């Protein structure tokens, strides 16, 4: 049986209502900046793709904001950790 994290002192994240992230209804950057990000990523997008992706980018930006905006304690490590026993497998 595996042990769980329960009781290890990790605080539950504060509860936010799900609609909070929907308040970000426009991309946090304009189309020109978005195109620059795409170019930096090495993507070759058509103008239509640039517009479409920019139109939905704000949803992803809102999710990124949601995972960041918590004032998380420095000791909360990522859930994926380096395991030296398995590192070479």
């Amino acid at each position: 049986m595996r042990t769980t994290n329960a009781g290890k002192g990790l605080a539950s994240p504060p509860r936010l209502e799900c609609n909070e992230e929907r308040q970000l209804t426009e991309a946090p950057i304009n189309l020109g900046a978005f195109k620059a990000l795409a170019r930096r990523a090495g993507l070759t997008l058509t103008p239509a793709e640039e517009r479409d992706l920019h139109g939905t980018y704000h949803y992803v930006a809102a999710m990124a904001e949601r995972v960041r905006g918590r004032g998380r304690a420095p000791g909360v490590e990522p859930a994926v950790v380096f395991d030296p026993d398995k590192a070479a497998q």
Partner: protein
Amino acid sequence: MTPPLTIAQAAALIAARKLSPVELVQSCLARIEKLDDTLHAFIRLTPARALAEAKAAEAQIMTSGPRGPLHGIPIAHKDIFCTKGIPTTAHSKILIDHVPAEDAIVVRRLVEAGTVMLGKLATHEFATVGPSFDLPWPPARNPWNPAHFTGGSSSGTGAAVAAGLVLGGTGSDTGGSIRLPASLCGVAGFKPTYGLCPRTGILPLAYSLDHVGPLAWTVEDCAIMLQPMVGPDAGDSASANVQAPDFRASLGGSIKGMRIGFVRHFHELDCSVNDATRRALEDAVSVFRDLGAEVIDVTLPPLADWTACGEIIVLAESYALHEKWMKSRLQDYGQCFRDYVTMGAFLSAGDYVEAQRMRRELCAAFDDTMLKVDVLLCATTRAEAPPIETQTNVNWFELPCLTGAFNVRGAPALAVCAGFTAAGLPLGMQLVGRPFEDATVLRAGHQYEKATPWRNKRPALSV
């Protein structure tokens, strides 16, 4: 053509020598011939191999009896499961010429258990999002009404099992890809605990969220299929070194006294479901109480938290996997895949690390809740299967996902049929357990199935 059978029924008939594996395979092939031009569940059939394997199984069974309950049972694999010498394309132009040199570990284990492989099943491209109409093969259709969506990404497996084209099949689940098609196609689908089934030889989507599991008509059949799939493998760094119980033997116990946490806020506050789904969930609560379980409302972090955490991880990990091809062959992907995975290019390393840190907090909250209950009950989808043409321009990020939370936790999660709409489309629900308590989840699902009539009804076109 015999009526569709469950794996348990077919295994009993084969063991009693009342059913030949060859006849069973021929019956499935006849049903495929009749229905798959409509359903598009298969993207590749392997009838010659299937008949050869069935004949070999028949000869072995006549000589020494069946190896186990999967000996001679026809199944098929989602086309991200590598199959030696048989193309494995992920339903994508990108890998249209990809012929693996080896079987995936779980494919090999299912072969060793005696299964007969009928072919490779449709998937959303690289197990992501769909349906897509711009790929080399069309998307699968729902056997309960072929004008409707199957759910995905294990879309072909859901359709094939529901229509009786196969008795079971494999799926993968990174955010719901076993449970969503299981729910919309009215079958059972089980996402085991992360690491229980090795993913070696299965095309990845997101390393830290990918799970592998079975879909079949019943929970009992899922338990039968799961058994040989489980076990450590050195090729998968997440593979768990645990001793698996006898899943089928674990199904029979009573659930009297089992504590079931009803995650009501998922479908009432965080992501509203339609009336039929809400009623099905409330009815399920009554069924479990009648079976002697104690059902209480419980609270988890909101779906938006789980969804944000899961989506950032999926996008970052899948973009990293596909970055080379996305830079050089972007137009060889379908539009759904491009629209979805491209978003990973706009995330930072900090976004990914923060998502993995948030994941630890969410896991702790889940585990705190699971101190009070043995199993969770919650919705799988917002409604029954929608018409497929309404799914062509979906914004994948607009609504929270009801299934992804349990990929983030890596917890075992089972989708079962929970009834039907007035129009005859299936409704689904999820049962979820603590990591490595897969048998408890399967037992709850099996007892629910036995107490309800839903397994007695098959899609009209399959009978």
